[in-house]
């Protein structure tokens, strides 16, 4: 290929411009590789929630006695107005039916869950997903105070806190004081711990507790090990997989009487 002097000088620039145009024309596939999409699904609109609640109520028609059905349907409508999902309330009612619980108890259980969902919604505002509302309600049932939910929200402002709240509920249910459990979970969130790492932490603490270690001590030791392996990310950026040395356990924490 023979080029004149001017063409030879301009050719590399032309190629570079062509490449840039290709990148601009196809930003999605290239950007998708560079920045994985991590946006959770959008929350349902009030109209959608109302339609969902009616559909959910219809599923209880065959399962509940008329009085209980009307009471639960009223709760479902209230849930739609309050912006909380109806599905967990229906599941609670159906669980009661499956267990053969008396209708008044089912209605009470659904009402209590509704109250917790509303409280969770208040504490977790801005809500990222329905799943975290359910986990938040479970955490409140386990004894986690609402202020702890707010702290978790603050530590995970743009990502769903469903897993973190689920782990928090488990830790508190296992006997870890709520404040210490919240401190540990929020600290790990701020350092970029992934949901799966939190789940593994909970599993490790559970096994330590089964071995006789006090829950708080087990959490402290396991959280320290996990923290030591996480890259510090004050901005909340996702952390990197821990090193082998950091994830290897030295055995269950020893309790010194």
């Amino acid at each position, binding site marked *: 290929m023979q080029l004149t002097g001017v063409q030879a000088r301009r050719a590399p620039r032309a190629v*570079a411009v062509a490449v840039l145009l290709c990148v601009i024309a196809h930003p999605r596939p290239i950007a998708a590789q560079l920045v994985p999409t991590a946006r959770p699904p959008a929350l349902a609109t009030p109209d959608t929630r109302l339609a969902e609640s009616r559909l959910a109520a219809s599923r209880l028609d065959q399962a509940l006695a008329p009085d209980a059905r009307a009471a639960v349907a009223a709760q479902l409508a209230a849930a739609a107005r309050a912006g909380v999902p109806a599905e967990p309330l229906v599941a609670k009612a*159906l669980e009661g039916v499956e267990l053969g619980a008396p209708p008044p108890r089912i209605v009470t259980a659904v009402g209590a869950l509704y109250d917790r969902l509303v409280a969770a919604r208040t504490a977790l505002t801005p809500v990222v997903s329905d799943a975290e509302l359910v986990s938040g309600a479970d955490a409140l049932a386990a004894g986690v105070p609402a202020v702890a939910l707010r702290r978790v929200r603050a530590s995970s402002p743009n990502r769903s806190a469903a897993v973190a709240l689920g782990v928090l509920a488990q830790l508190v249910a296992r006997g870890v004081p709520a404040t210490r459990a919240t401190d540990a979970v929020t600290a790990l969130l701020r350092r970029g711990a992934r949901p799966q790492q939190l789940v593994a932490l909970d599993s490790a603490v559970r096994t330590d507790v089964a071995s006789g270690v006090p829950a708080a001590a087990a959490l402290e030791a396991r959280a320290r090990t996990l923290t030591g392996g996480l890259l510090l990310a004050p901005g909340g950026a996702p952390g990197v997989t821990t090193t082998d040395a950091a994830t290897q356990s030295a055995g269950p924490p020893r309790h010194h009487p």
Partner: protein
Amino acid sequence: MMPNGSPVPDDERRDPALERAVAALRPLPPSSADAVARVVAAAERGAVLQRQRRARRAATWRVAGALGAVAAGLALLVVVRRPLDRPTADRPIAAHATSERPPTLANDIRPVDTVRPGTPVLVARASVGATDAPQLVTFRLDRPRASAVTVVGDFNQWNAHATRLARDANGAWTAVVPLTPGRHAYRFVVDDSLRVLDPRAPAERDAELGVARSVVVVGVP
């Protein structure tokens, strides 16, 4: 005698090589200034042409190099993109697990294929890229003498007939269920009547309904 007519210096007269050169050149006719000028001009033109050829070759290689880099970049995009598009179904992640020896965080994340028989498992396989996408979770109950086992939970509306487990040759009943990340409650129903908790999972008591149920927290990689 020198070409300009001056006598040869004494020291040069004694150099045999010089004397031979002088002897060889003396018979030649005098050089023409015009001829010399033409030769010099031709040499200069040749040098210019050579420089121009070198410059063109360099430009050609620059363009070829740029095109090659573009092609390599595009090929890299295609190669790198393909694995990200495919769900990594072969990357199992433990939702929770217990074992007889103290577990480590790394041990909780183990491939399903290497889990020893009898080791309690509740393993999730994850796909890449979504934070709330359902994760596959394996439920397992060891009941060799049971004729039917199902799992009921908040993920199937507590329907005792929705999710049946399959029995393997060792009498272990298993089922793989997609669960959204978060906390889930469940129970096993054995032979359509007996409700049992998962011996390998933590349990909680539902205060309102007054019953116990097993709990699993499903994570996201």
